């Protein structure tokens, strides 16, 4: 027994503290601050921030393979279980009837995914290898679980900055989108009123939709199956009306536990070594660009639909096609309403918004399919 060595042993925590740890702890505190005091996606940024804090306390061992956060990472991130379980819960909270009532709104959900590919090109131009560039691009899905799912498969080393960018910017949408809306549309376009008189959607339709969608997307884009199928499973649990027990479990215990553990485990990957480099800065910047590109592409496509329809489509709903449900839909409706207080395009915007959710998952699957073949 070596008793003399006790003293340095007892100060080891401080002795092993690096400036990198210090910077990362500041980053963790910033995330927690945003979550708690600015209420920016607190259910995710608070656990991520706390996980980051723990990962930067030297010798605590929580991020080691046998430490708690390491165990959670192995159990739920590496297996992709956590994002998929979250999707079951999200699916059980989504209402697809506005989209089913006006199926052509689906098109806007495709246009709003351009940011994914545009950002991928920019990332390649900045020198990122293809797998990393694709993972960065998928921030443009503007959908946390999709971004995490794709990044885990293609570039797990970038998981933390990608997740942080995806969730942080989500709350900045009310700041990012409105200027672009006003810049890219004319007053005449924003004043376009839309008639909302859809066929009623039967319960049968609502039940068949998640099943047929799973099959259609699954057969065309096998890589998108895990994400789309869990989203649709959650939705089926809800709309079927016969398994309220499971639907409630999906919306409560399953999503809550998965969210807490996912946040902690992702935050735990934010070590100085992996996070403190220029790449992280570039990723944060590219993520912001991805959000903007999505909005621009959605608006331009909206303008195209506006012209082609003879000014029957308000191009603002194009901005709702980016997913980010339901903020984007509400913003588009609000902007139109601000221009003319009698103009209500919320249901159209919500249709586009739900389509954006589906488009994001499909785009994520397409990206996975193409890129895993190429690398």
């Amino acid at each position, binding site marked *: 027994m070596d008793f003399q060595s006790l003293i340095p042993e007892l100060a080891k925590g401080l002795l092993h503290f690096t400036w990198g740890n210090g910077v990362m702890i500041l980053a963790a505190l910033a995330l927690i601050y945003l979550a708690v005091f600015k209420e920016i996606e607190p259910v995710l940024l608070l656990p991520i921030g706390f996980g980051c804090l723990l990962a930067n306390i030297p010798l605590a061992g929580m991020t080691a393979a046998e430490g708690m956060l390491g165990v959670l990472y192995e159990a739920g991130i590496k297996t992709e279980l956590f994002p998929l379980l979250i999707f079951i819960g999200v699916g059980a909270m989504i209402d697809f009837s506005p989209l089913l009532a006006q199926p052509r709104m689906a098109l806007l959900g495709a246009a709003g995914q351009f940011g994914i590919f545009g950002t991928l*090109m920019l990332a390649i131009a900045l020198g990122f290898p293809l797998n990393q560039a694709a993972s960065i691009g998928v921030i443009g899905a503007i959908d946390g679980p999709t971004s995490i799912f794709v990044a885990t498969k293609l570039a797990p080393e970038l998981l933390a900055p990608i997740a942080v960018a995806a969730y942080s910017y989500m709350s900045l949408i009310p700041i990012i989108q409105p200027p672009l809306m006003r810049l890219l549309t004319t007053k005449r376009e924003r004043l376009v009123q839309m008639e909302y008189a859809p066929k009623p959607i039967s319960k049968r339709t609502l039940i068949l939709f998640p099943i047929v*969608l799973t099959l259609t997307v699954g057969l065309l884009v096998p890589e998108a199956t895990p994400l789309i199928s869990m989203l649709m499973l959650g939705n089926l649990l809800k709309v079927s009306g016969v398994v309220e027990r499971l639907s409630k479990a999906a919306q409560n215990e399953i999503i809550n536990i998965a969210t807490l553990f996912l946040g902690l485990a992702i935050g735990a990957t934010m070590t100085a070594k992996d996070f403190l480099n220029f790449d992280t800065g570039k990723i944060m910047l590219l993520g912001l660009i991805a959000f903007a590109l999505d909005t621009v592409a959605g608006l331009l496509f909206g303008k195209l639909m506006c012209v082609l329809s003879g000014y029957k489509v308000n191009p603002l709903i194009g901005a709702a096609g980016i997913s980010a449900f339901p903020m984007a839909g509400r913003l588009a409706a609000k902007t139109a309403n601000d221009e003319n207080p009698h103009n209500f395009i919320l249901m159209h915007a919500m249709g586009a918004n739900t*389509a954006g959710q589906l488009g994001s998952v499909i785009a994520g699957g397409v990206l996975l399919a193409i890129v895993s073949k190429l690398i």
Partner: protein
Amino acid sequence: MTANLLLALQITLIGMGLVFGAIILLWGMMTLLTKLTADKDSASDSPKPVSASETETLARAAAVAVALAMAEQQLSSAHPLKDPPTAIVSAWQLGMRTRQMAQKGYRLSR
């Protein structure tokens, strides 16, 4: 680098093409689905048509409705885990109810 950018452009074209292709397919699928199933079941709680030509009343009414909706929200979310009518439990509830019934019937008949 140029080769890489060219590749990225190709990925973008093919990717966006596939996304649009899949979404257009979904559009068709949804149209077909609503056509095939809509008429058979009309007692749905789907959104009623809202035309934009409604008058000022709409805006005023909306303010009232928000308050109502929020109150309802409050009420409905107050019991979020009430026992659901699914098989695991319902069978049991059935049994228990029947038992209570028999006991109460007995008591009432005294």
